[in-house]
């Protein structure tokens, strides 16, 4: 059984968005995912990390924690910040909702995480920070095939 994890700590700099994507791709590669699965994970982690940079820390410097866990073919990703938090979670997760239209935000971050991952949970404490926990089953289709074959 594959079991592994990583914990990554990086400052909230926009240069680190691509770093976060590379780290998660490399970590997930241990499950031999499809190109599409890798692409889904990259976009999901990119959205969560960008949100921490722009919204949580309001473009000031803070720390972002990225945790990834592999268990069999299930990958869990956590993106944690100690930033300003979210007052109204339901509203924040609505498509097209953004508090920063002046920065040309599309308001599609959470919607994208939800469509490209199997599960997205958000915990947030105003003034304390936010944790986005996302789960994706890797090789869902491959598994079915080998059962049938």
């Amino acid at each position: 059984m594959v079991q592994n994890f990583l914990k990554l700590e990086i400052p909230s700099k926009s240069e680190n968005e691509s770093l976060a994507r590379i780290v998660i791709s490399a970590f997930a590669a241990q499950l031999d995912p499809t190109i599409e699965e890798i692409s889904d994970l990259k976009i999901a982690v990119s959205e969560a990390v960008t949100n921490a940079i722009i919204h949580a820390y309001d473009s000031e410097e803070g720390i972002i924690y990225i945790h990834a866990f592999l268990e069999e073919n299930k990958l869990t990703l956590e993106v944690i910040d100690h930033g300003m938090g979210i007052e109204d979670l339901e509203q924040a997760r609505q498509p097209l909702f953004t508090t920063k239209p002046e920065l040309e935000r599309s308001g599609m971050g959470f919607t994208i995480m939800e469509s490209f991952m199997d599960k997205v949970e958000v915990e947030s404490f105003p003034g304390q920070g936010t944790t986005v926990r996302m789960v994706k089953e890797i090789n869902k289709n491959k598994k079915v095939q080998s059962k049938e074959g």
Partner: protein
Amino acid sequence: MEIELKLVRKNLIVRLKGELDHHTASCFREEVEREFEKEIAQNLVLNLGELTFMDSSGLGVILGRYRRITEKGGKVVVTNMQPQVERLYSLSGLQKIIPHYRREEEALRNL
């Protein structure tokens, strides 16, 4: 990200190469704004053929250009989209307002 600019009549062709995220979005925005400030180009043809990654920050910056350009009566179209980017594009609803063509020539004929 690399940006290639080309002016064909009143149409600015912008070819993006690499990854369009929040970090690279500002560079894209500035390059395009600078060109449109010259008031030669009217329309924007965005070639995404060599874009290997795009997220919602990319959607936001494209939408931002769409707003500025259509305000002045110009048009924005997108070409050469890869499957991964296309998924994002249809999910976001951007496809309803920004036409998508297979190739630049096709886009230019329709502007």
